[in-house]
């Protein structure tokens, strides 16, 4: 089980004292937070990608992640999310491949579509094409990471002829990809098709949606023959604020909650913690809540926490990371490990992917020979061939009949 933090890089005024960090301060603090996460015992740091204020998450996450790669040892550097809709897949392939080399493989990505309408036209795209863009762009990205001398043509980008990516992915193995979506079944299906991971941000929604999306992904992962449903790769988000005493946590966090971007000025803290995975309380409460996620979605591989938003001072964020690292993660690691059956894989690392490819066990998009998906496809093809043959023979019969009549 991997534990990490993810940031959206929001610049929010601290509602308790009215101070707003400068962009420069927030960017440098993001670096501090990521480095601190490694020291506190986290496995993953993921940055959002943003193109509009009040966010300073990078427009191109590899810029930040490469800087962090140079200053960390073990931390896996990831995204939450990489905008697969508005970015050119060729540039994504190049930038993340390069990052993979710099970071010695400590890189993976979470693909997302982005739900801010105005961003799309800034990049010549249309939000109404969100799903088709995600499908086409990722398919090209996948090919760029797995093939050379590519000829390609699609709806959304200039065609490619004889294109070969440089640099090629580290050790010939593409970074692991998670596909994030809150409620689009198409994206769960996409993750399953490629044998990639599925990530649910698990922040704003009622648990029924989360359970449904993960279940769909798991079923389809098995259908495409990448493994059994319970072996599919699932990542979840989460959100917590802690104090030794739960009343103190509520008191301290409430002003930040009430004024937070996205969910502030809406439901009360009490209602929101009941409806969504947000936990405000003691470390023990965070432990219990997080273990509950496993009851919802089964054994999963990655748990991310949103910790540095809503104007919380950086020092408070670092204290929170320490609390999680000291009191929550050790217990969770132990408990999750105890519950996890041996045939459920760990979160994929670069070393694992290299080894898997060496064994010839890398997933085949759409399913290997013998998978239910492949069998269905073959059956459909056979039926189509048979009906074409029928049509041909009946056409020739009627032709001969009419010949006779003539």
């Amino acid at each position, binding site marked *: 089980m991997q534990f990490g933090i993810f940031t959206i890089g929001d610049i929010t005024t601290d509602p308790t004292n009215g101070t707003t960090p400068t962009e420069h301060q927030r960017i440098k603090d993001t670096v501090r937070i990521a480095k601190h996460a490694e020291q506190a015992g986290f496995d993953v740091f993921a940055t959002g990608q943003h193109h509009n204020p009040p966010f300073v998450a990078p427009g191109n996450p590899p810029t930040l992640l490469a800087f962090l790669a140079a200053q960390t040892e073990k931390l896996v550097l990831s995204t939450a999310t990489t905008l697969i809709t508005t970015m050119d897949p060729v540039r994504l392939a190049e930038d993340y491949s390069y990052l993979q080399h710099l970071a010695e493989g400590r890189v993976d990505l979470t693909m997302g579509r982005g739900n801010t309408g105005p961003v799309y036209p800034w990049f010549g795209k249309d939000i109404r094409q969100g*799903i*088709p863009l995600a*499908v*086409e762009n990722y*398919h090209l990205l996948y090919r760029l990471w797995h093939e050379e001398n590519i000829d390609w043509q699609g*709806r959304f980008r200039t065609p490619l002829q004889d294109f070969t990516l440089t640099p090629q992915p580290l050790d010939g193995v593409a970074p692991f990809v998670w596909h994030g979506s*809150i409620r689009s*079944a*198409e994206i*769960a*299906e*996409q993750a*399953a*098709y490629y044998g990639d991971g599925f990530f649910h941000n698990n922040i*704003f*929604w*009622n648990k*029924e*949606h989360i*359970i*449904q*999306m993960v279940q*769909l992904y798991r079923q*389809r992962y098995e259908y495409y023959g990448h493994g059994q449903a319970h072996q599919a790769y699932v990542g979840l988000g989460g959100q917590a604020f802690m104090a030794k005493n739960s009343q103190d946590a509520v008191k301290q966090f409430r002003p930040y909650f009430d004024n937070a971007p*996205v*969910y502030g*000025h*809406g*439901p009360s803290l009490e*209602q*929101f913690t009941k*409806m*969504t995975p947000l936990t405000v309380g003691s470390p023990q409460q965070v432990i219990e809540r997080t273990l509950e996620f496993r009851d919802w979605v089964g054994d999963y591989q990655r748990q991310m926490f949103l910790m540095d938003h809503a104007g919380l001072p950086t020092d408070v964020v670092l204290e929170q990371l320490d609390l999680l690292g000291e009191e929550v993660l050790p217990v969770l690691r132990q408990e999750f490990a105890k519950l996890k059956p041996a045939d459920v894989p760990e979160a994929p690392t670069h070393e694992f992917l290299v080894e898997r490819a060496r064994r010839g066990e890398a997933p085949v998009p*759409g399913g290997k020979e013998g998978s239910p998906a492949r069998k269905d*496809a073959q059956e459909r093809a056979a039926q189509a061939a048979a009906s074409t043959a029928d049509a041909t023979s009946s056409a020739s019969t009627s032709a001969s009949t009419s010949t006779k009549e003539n």
Partner: protein
Amino acid sequence: MEDTPDLGSPAGADPFTPQARHLVVVSGGLGDPSSSLMLANRMATAAADHLSAEGIVPEVHVVEIRLLATEIAEATVNPSRSAALQAALDQVEQADGIVTVSPTFKASYSGLFKAFWDLVDNDALRGVPVLLGATGGTPRHSLMIDTALRPLFSYLRSKVLSSSVFAASDDWGEVTGGQGSARTTPLQHRIDAAGEDLASVVGRLPARPRRATGEAKPLEVIPFEQLLRGN
């Protein structure tokens, strides 16, 4: 011609296993007591009586928007929904027929009424019979149903019945509908006629599939090969 369904017995089936139809009343009434709720309930009762007369068991569910006011407001700025609001939306989205009434505010339905319908899935009420009603201070607002309510439900592609009921303050004073009334047909007559119209449409449509209480709407899977082909 023997395939033509017998329109005289819409339930058409064994009388020992009568069919049920779910009527959902959505009242936009903001007060308590509320004339909109009263009108909506009377319209639903009229429809239910006519369904019963045709051998169909009417199940009537009432959603009072005023009781969900805070949750509706929260849900418009935040994706999570309270259990009570979700239960109301589930009822509406699975209804076999809907009776909905709003008070007239500033020549239209109330903002809260619209906020509730904004939360309903765009495709959920496709082809579902909807009977419209409205209340207002004076009969001069009576076209509100046609200028404001009807376009909303046309957008949702529901089967909006052409009959509707507008009840102005005066109408409530004329329950018995005196013979010599110079105004419109008495309110209760219009309610009965509209209820009958709704029942006749609901009774002839097959019952819509229902989920168990609390069960989430199933996700629809489009096979990925199809997504890749771009259709």
